[in-house]
C-alpha cells in the first residue's frame, strides 16, 4: 500500500503524465524511437529523485510504443519501427473513412497489451529475482552469455547472424577499456585520463540510437513525402468489431513473451503478433486492405513488449531490448544495480516504478482516445527543424551525466562509426548489448576462475549452470540451423 501511495502522490502522477504524453508525442514523430527518447533523457534524470526519474522514463517508454501507431494509421508513416505492421492495416482503414475505428482499436490494444505485460512483470519479476540470489560468479558469467546468445535472434535479412555476433563481441571488447578490476592496472587507455573509468555506455547509447538517426536523416537523398490527405477526410464512428479481444489477447501474450527474450524488440513482437493474427483470422483476404484484427494484434504485441522486456532487465540485469538497456542505464546511474537487490534493498523505488507503468497505460489510453487525430500532425514537423533540436539535446545529454565534454566526443564518434557499421550490416543493438553485458561477463568470469582455482569446469559445475548452458544452446541452435540452411540454399543456387 505504501508503494501505491508513492505512485499516487501528486508529483509522481505529474512525472508519469508528462513522461507518457512526451512519449506519445515522440513516438508520433517519424524517425524518433522510444530508445532514442529514453536514452536521450536518462542523463537528465540524474539530478531528479530516482523514483520520479524512473517514472518519467517508464512513461516515455509506454507512451512512445503507442504513439508510433497514430501517424502509421493516419499518414501511412509509422512513428516507430514497431508501428510498421499497424500501418499495413491502419492506413487502408483510414482511406476507407474508418480511421477513427483504427485509432480506437490501436489505443485499446496498446492499453491491453501494456497492462497485461506489466502484470506479468509484477508477478514474475520478484520470483525470478529470488532465483537470481542463488547465482554465483559462474552463473553470472553464463547469464551474460545467455544475454549475448539472444543477439543471434537480432539477426535478420539486413544484419547477418555472424555480423550480429561480431558486433556483440566488439561491444564487449570496447567494454574492457579502462581499469582492470582484478589487478587495478590500466588497459588500452592510451594515456587518457578520461578512459580510466572505461567507456560509459550512455554516450554510446545516445550516439548509436539518437545521433545516428539524425545523421541518417540529414544525409537522406530524398525527403520523405507524407500524404496528409486523410487528415482532411471525414472519419465515421464505429463500435469495436466482434471478436477483436481475441487478437488483443494473442498480441499481449506474444508481445510479453517476445519482450522477455533478450535481444528481441517491439518490432519483432508486433510482426509476430500480426502474422499470428493473419493465420488465425477467418478473413485472411482482408489483410493488407484494412483488417482491424491486424492492428489489434500488432499494437497489443508492441506494447506487450514493455513489461516483458523489463523482466530480464530488472531481475537479471540483462536488457530485454534496446529501450530496456537505456532504462537499465537510468537504474545504474541512480545506484540501483539491476538484480535481486532491486526487489529487496531498493524495493521502495522499484515497486512504485512498476506500478507507475499501469498509470502510464491509463494516461496514454485517455490521451489516445481524446486527441489522437490531432497528434498525427506532429509527424508533419520538418526534419530540418527536428535534426538540430535533437542533436542539441544529444550533446546536452551526453555531457550532463559526468559533466564531461569527452563524453560528447565519444557520442559523436559512436554515431559516426556506428553508422559505418550499420551500413555494412552490423547490428547496433548487439553492440550495445555487448557493451552493457561485457563488464558483467568479465566480472563473473574472473571471479569464477579464482573460485575454480583456474579450472574452467566451475562454469559447468552447478545444476543452475547446467540448465543455463542448455538454455544458451537452445537459444543458439535454431537460428544457427536456419542460417546454415540459408547458406546451403545459397550455395546450391550458385552451383546451378
Amino acid at each position, binding site marked *: 500500500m505504501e508503494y501505491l501511495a508513492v505512485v499516487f502522490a501528486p508529483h509522481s502522477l505529474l512525472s508519469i503524465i508528462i513522461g507518457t504524453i512526451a512519449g506519445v508525442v515522440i513516438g508520433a514523430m517519424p524517425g524518433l524511437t522510444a530508445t532514442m527518447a529514453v536514452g536521450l533523457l536518462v542523463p537528465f534524470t540524474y539530478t531528479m529523485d530516482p523514483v520520479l526519474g524512473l517514472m518519467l522514463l517508464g512513461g516515455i517508454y509506454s507512451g512512445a510504443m503507442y504513439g508510433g501507431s497514430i501517424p502509421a494509421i493516419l499518414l501511412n508513416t509509422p512513428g516507430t519501427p514497431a508501428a510498421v505492421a499497424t500501418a499495413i492495416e491502419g492506413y487502408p482503414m483510414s482511406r476507407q473513412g474508418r480511421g477513427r475505428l483504427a485509432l480506437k482499436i490501436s489505443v485499446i490494444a496498446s492499453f491491453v497489451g501494456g497492462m497485461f505485460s506489466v502484470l506479468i512483470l509484477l508477478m514474475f519479476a520478484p520470483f525470478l529475482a529470488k532465483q537470481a540470489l542463488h547465482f554465483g560468479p559462474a552463473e553470472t558469467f553464463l547469464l551474460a552469455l545467455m544475454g549475448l546468445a539472444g543477439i543471434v535472434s537480432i539477426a535478420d535479412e539486413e544484419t547477418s547472424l555472424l555480423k550480429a555476433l561480431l558486433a556483440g*563481441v566488439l561491444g564487449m571488447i570496447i567494454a574492457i577499456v579502462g581499469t582492470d578490476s582484478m589487478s587495478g592496472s590500466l*588497459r588500452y587507455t592510451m594515456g587518457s585520463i578520461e578512459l580510466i573509468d572505461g567507456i560509459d555506455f550512455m554516450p554510446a547509447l545516445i550516439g548509436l540510437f539518437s545521433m545516428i538517426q539524425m545523421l541518417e536523416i540529414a544525409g537522406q537523398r530524398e525527403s520523405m513525402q507524407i500524404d496528409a490527405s486523410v487528415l482532411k477526410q471525414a472519419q465515421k464512428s464505429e463500435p469495436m468489431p466482434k471478436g477483436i479481444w481475441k487478437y488483443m489477447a494473442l498480441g499481449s501474450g506474444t508481445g510479453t513473451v517476445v519482450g522477455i527474450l533478450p535481444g528481441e524488440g517491439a518490432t519483432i513482437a508486433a510482426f509476430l503478433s500480426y502474422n499470428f493474427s493473419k493465420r488465425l483470422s477467418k478473413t485472411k483476404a482482408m489483410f493488407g486492405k484494412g483488417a482491424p484484427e491486424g492492428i489489434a494484434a500488432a499494437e497489443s504485441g508492441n506494447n506487450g513488449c514493455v513489461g516483458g522486456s523489463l523482466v530480464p532487465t530488472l531481475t537479471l540485469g540483462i536488457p530485454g531490448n534496446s529501450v530496456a538497456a537505456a532504462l537499465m542505464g537510468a537504474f545504474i546511474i541512480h545506484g540501483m544495480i539491476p538484480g535481486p537487490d532491486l526487489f529487496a534493498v531498493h524495493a521502495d523505488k522499484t515497486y512504485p516504478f512498476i506500478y507507475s507503468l499501469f498509470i502510464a497505460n491509463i494516461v496514454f489510453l485517455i490521451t489516445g482516445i481524446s486527441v489522437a487525430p490531432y497528434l498525427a500532425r506532429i509527424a508533419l514537423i520538418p526534419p530540418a527543424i527536428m535534426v538540430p533540436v535533437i542533436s542539441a539535446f544529444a550533446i546536452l545529454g551526453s555531457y550532463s551525466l559526468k559533466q564531461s565534454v569527452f563524453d560528447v566526443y565519444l557520442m559523436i564518434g559512436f554515431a559516426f562509426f556506428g553508422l559505418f557499421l550499420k551500413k555494412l550490416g552490423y547490428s547496433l543493438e548487439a553492440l550495445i548489448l555487448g557493451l552493457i553485458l561485457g563488464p558483467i561477463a*568479465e566480472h563473473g568470469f574472473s571471479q569464477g576462475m579464482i573460485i575454480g582455482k583456474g579450472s574452467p569446469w566451475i562454469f559447468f559445475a552447478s545444476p543452475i549452470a547446467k540448465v543455463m548452458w542448455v538454455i544458451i544452446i537452445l537459444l543458439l541452435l535454431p537460428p544457427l540451423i536456419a542460417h546454415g540452411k540459408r547458406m546451403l540454399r545459397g550455395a546450391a543456387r550458385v552451383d546451378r
Partner: protein
Amino acid sequence: MTRELLDRIVLGGFIVLAVLLYLSTASYPGIAQKTSALYVRFLAVSFGGLSAVQLLFSLRKPSGSGEPLDLFGRASRFFGLMVGLIIFAVLFESLGFFIPAAVFIPLIAVMLGYRNPAVIALSTGGVLLAVYLIFVQLLSVNLPGPNLF
C-alpha cells in the same frame, strides 16, 4: 568503393585487432594472467574467429554488382552536421550550452534546406527556453556557462 570491398577491409581490420588484443594480454600483471587475461583472450579468439569465418564467406560469395556503398547520402549535409556537432562540442566548455545552441540550431536548419525564419527563430527560442526552465531550473542540471570573461 564497393560495399563488398569495404566489408572485407573492415573484417581484415577486425582480425588484426583480434591478434593485437590477444598479444597484448601477455603484459597483464600477476593475478590478471589467470583471470582478466583469459577473458580478453577468449574475446580475441571469438572476435578473430568470427571475423575470419565471415571473411571466408564473403570471399567465397560470387562477386556482386560492384555497386558503391552510399555511406553518407548527401555528403555535404551529412558532414555539415558532423562539423557542426564537433564545433558545438568544442565551444561547449568555453561558451556553455546556450550560446552555441542558439547558433547551431538555426545554422543546421538552414543547411538542411529550411528557409522559414519565423519557424526557425521560434523553434530555437522554444528549445532554449525549455532547456532553461526544465533542465536548469526544474532539474538543476549543472550546465557550464560562458567562462571567457
